[in-house]
Every structure is written in structure tokens, then in C-alpha cells.
């Protein structure tokens, strides 16, 4: 379908980022961004920070980064 060329500027992903299909009582068909700092699935918008898309940087732009 597409290779999402709009995120071609992505850099290093966050070291706290994992992709999981389940955690606790939550389960999804497709693996989703999961933050190991707050132990929660990440909002789709925040996943752009996790993946360092569009010049975003986890250390600078994430309020949970440790």
C-alpha cells in the first residue's frame, strides 16, 4: 500500500520503546507502541516522539523520558 515516506526523517527510536500486542489486561491485534517507563501503551501521537519522527527527539520532547 505505502511505505509511509512521510516518516523518512525518523532517527533513533527511544530506548524505552517496545512494540507489544498485550500488556496487563490490554490486548491488540497489531503490536503497538509501549513505553517501559510508564508501563503503558503510548498514544499514537506520542509514538512519533518515541520513533524520533519529524525531527522529534525522545530526550527533548518526551515528558517521561528517563
Amino acid at each position, binding site marked *: *500500500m*505505502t511505505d*509511509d*515516506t*512521510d516518516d523518512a526523517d525518523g532517527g533513533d527510536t527511544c530506548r524505552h520503546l517496545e*512494540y507489544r500486542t498485550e500488556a496487563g489486561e*490490554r490486548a*491488540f491485534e*497489531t*503490536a*503497538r*507502541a509501549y513505553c517501559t517507563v510508564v508501563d*503503558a*501503551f*503510548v*498514544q*499514537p*501521537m*506520542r*509514538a*512519533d*516522539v518515541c*520513533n524520533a*519522527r*519529524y*525531527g*522529534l527527539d525522545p530526550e*527533548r*520532547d*518526551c*515528558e517521561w523520558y528517563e
Partner: protein
Amino acid sequence: MSATGYESYLAGDPVVVTAALTGGVHGKEANPAIPESPAEIAEQAAACEAAGASVLHLHARRPNGERSFDTARFQAVNDAVREATDDVILQNSTGGTGAPLEVRRNSLRTDPAPEMASLDMGPLNRYDRLTSENTRHTIDELAREMDERGIVPELEVFNNGHLNETFRLVEAGLVSEAPYVNLIFGGGTLTPPDPRNLLNLVDQLPEGSPWNVLGFGPHQLPLTTMAVLLGGHVRVGLEDNVYYRSGEPAESNAQLVERTVRVAEELGRPVATTAEAREILGLS
């Protein structure tokens, strides 16, 4: 007679219902009913059309639910929605916190172009370290491209300062003299959700501008109801509110549309057909 006041309510003018189906901020982690794939979005689009929505506000996502600004993904959403619906107005989003202008243009470049697109009117803070910048340069560039492609903008007024920017765009000739304005209420640097603030904003609109109300979360129902009484139009959906009532997640976008339609009709305003919506919103 005023087209944007109580007289409009008394006249029983039709109310345009917009359904904001998915958004790009939260997803199934917030409410499993939020549609993310083109097929899911199309299915809920059809249900919302059947319930009375004539405008569908659309975002695109990757298979894992994350935001996408890729034209091909917007194309897939647009195609699926058109296939599943009879006659609705597609309104692609150009919003994108943290995303550059270059990718935010992509939703305007589907074939055919959407009839409408959203146009954020200025900065918005909702997070500690992320902001929606929306510089004047970005706004003007998006407005120009919409104009070139025959796309009617919906001006997203996050707070009353953005009405200054609305008049700036009108005076610059980048939008029509009576543009369609969406008044947005919520947290951060959005307009504080309060009926008095809605009354004040309506008084400050460009003369003749049709207008819409978007209230986040618990403010969706009361402020859209107030819009019905003041001759405005309404936007509901899971992008803006994932609950039907406090503590009870909404089952679907259509559930929220159905409630809004019931409210409008009980109050004496019929829900606009798509043809009426096109006339109200200045679409060809």
C-alpha cells in the same frame, strides 16, 4: 435575520452534524471502538451517515494505529469511505502536532481532493514538551494550497486570539469573507469550556460566518447543545470524546451522532441533509 444566532434557531434552520471519527492523538488504547484502519473508518462512516452526519472529519493511520501523513494512506481512507457511504462531505485533517508543513500538506493531495479540510489557526499547548506550533507561514501555505485545489477550509479556532487570525486571513483574501469557523473548547490553550465563552466567541465572528462547536470530553454534549440553540452547527465523535457519559465509554461514533441528532430534533432544528450542508458551508 442573523444567520448565526438565536433567530436561526427560531427559524428552524438545519444543523450540520460533523462526525470526527478517529483523530490522530489517541487510539484503541483509549477506547477500542475507535476506528483506525480504512475498513474500520469506512464502516463507522456509513453508520454515522445513516445517523445524520453529513460531514466526516478524517485522519489516516498506520496499521499499528500511529498517525500517518502519507497521501496514499489518506487516499485509502477517502476511497473506503466513499465506497461505503452514499453522499457525504469528506473533510481531511491538516492538523499534526510536531509534524512539519511538508507532510501536513499531503492530506490535500488525494484524487479527487476532499471537499473540505481543517485549517488550524494558531498555536496550541496541551502537553509539557510538545506544542502544535501552527505558525502564520504554515497556516497561509495550507490555505493557499486549499484554495488552489478548490478545498473549502474549516478554520479551527482554538481560542479567541485565533479569531484575530481568522480576520487576518479574511483581509488577506486567503479565505472567503464569511469562512466556516469551528469554535473549540477544552483544556490547555483551548478556549476554557464555559457557556459564556461560547456566547462571546459567537458575537465576535465575521459577519455571516457559519460556525460549529467542538467540545472535548464532557463538554461535547452541553456545548454542542448550546450551539443548536444559537444557530450553530455541531461536531461530535470519538476523536474528541471517548465517553458516552461519565465512566461509560462510547460504543461507536454513530452512538454519539445519534444522540446529537435526537437533541437537535427535540429542540426543533432539523438535521441538514448533505445537499443543505453543502449550501450552508459554501461548497460548490
